[in-house]
């Protein structure tokens, strides 16, 4: 059976993005419901800001890997460091971090709107 090449390309990437987004969203829902009771209303602001921080770092890390990843890989090979660092792994990790942050950010306004 022929698989659409675009789908084949997108599926693993969407899985990484979706899993982290869902995990971030779940934690964000928990934080938005529980934390205001424990530490006050500023908790929502802080949860959103922490999510933004993760999204920012994830995006920066992803673009940094895309820009300089090949060079870093070559330098590691040249210096024989024996490290397993690769551009693909780095981008995957940064996608997870960024999507997790986006999930956190998404949860705060949605939960706040749902609770009125």
């Amino acid at each position, binding site marked *: 059976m022929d698989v659409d090449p675009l789908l084949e390309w997108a599926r693993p990437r969407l899985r990484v993005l979706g899993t982290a987004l869902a995990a971030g969203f779940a934690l964000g829902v928990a934080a938005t419901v529980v934390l205001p009771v424990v530490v006050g209303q500023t908790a929502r602001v802080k949860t959103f800001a922490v999510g933004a921080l993760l999204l*920012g770092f994830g995006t920066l890390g992803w673009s940094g890997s895309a820009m300089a990843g090949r060079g870093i890989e070559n330098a590691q090979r040249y210096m024989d460091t024996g490290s397993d660092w690769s551009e693909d792994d780095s981008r995957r990790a940064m996608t997870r971090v960024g999507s997790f942050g986006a999930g956190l950010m998404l949860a705060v306004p949605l939960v706040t709107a749902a609770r009125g």
Partner: protein
Amino acid sequence: MVSKRFVAKRLLLLVPVLFGVATVVFAILHLAPGDPARLIAGQRASREQYRAVREALGLNQPLWRQYLDFLVNAVQFNFGRSYQPGGFGRPVREVIADTLPVTIELAVYGQLIGILIGIPLGILSAVKQDSLTDHATRIGALSGISVPIFWSGPLLILAVATPPLSLFPTSGRIGVGFTPGSDFTRHTGLVTVDTLLSGNLPAFVDAVQHLFLPSLVIGIYSTALISRMMRSSMLEVVRQDYVRTARAKGQGERITLMKHGFRNALIPVVTIIGIQFGTLLGGAVLTETVFGIGGIGTTLVAAISNQNYPVVQGTVLTFALLFTLVNLGVDVTYSYLDPRIDQ
């Protein structure tokens, strides 16, 4: 020839970088303690006044709304007005437009000194390896890297800018006898360029004299780093087979070194120059402070300590934009020096 696809890809990658920086800056400023509305309204402000300032700043909006507004404004490079106790100050765009050229001018001249002295010194040191010239250059480079700017700056002032020599002015960008607007027109904000464009030669000479010492302080550090990098890169290249082949074919030593060696040895040096120039734009704070020049680095430090959020956001994003553009320039230069890179 540099391929358009390579440059387009690099330009596209600027978008996530700037988005990432904007998001991180927004998050950090909202995680940091302190209330800008209280700062502007003042400690004695009534509840109504405080609420009015919060509304004017948009702080009464939910954070997600503030974030979206911030992103939309950041794309248009609009960061609002700077904060000051008792009200709002100048537009951030104006603050950046005034201070950025100061730092750029300092960084460009400093880096120029570094390149003009560092590259020939590095080549000379490599060509005359283990000679007295080489040892002297290496010791000089090591000293240049090791000496901090907050020490070399005042030392230079004491040595050449105070009596009995008094060769150069110790602070400012231009003498008090020259007034921007009446003595020369502001075109670029770069005082040496503006005085030259206005055809005011005495003002130009005065500006060069004012900028010489701060540029030299930056240049000493740059020279040290560039000459060390150039030396090691050149030494590696001259041992390559293609250089040996050129020599075996009977090519002269100078042509072999400059035509085959220099261009290839330049690749790692360009990286260092690019990274250093980016760092200089943000890291010239010490030089600006020692020589009393109000650049963008000093503005950022003051804005952080005064919780002047719009100025912090604007300057950090400007740094990010400049840094990424400099890196783009470095990448383009790479692919010019070694066409295999963009393939």
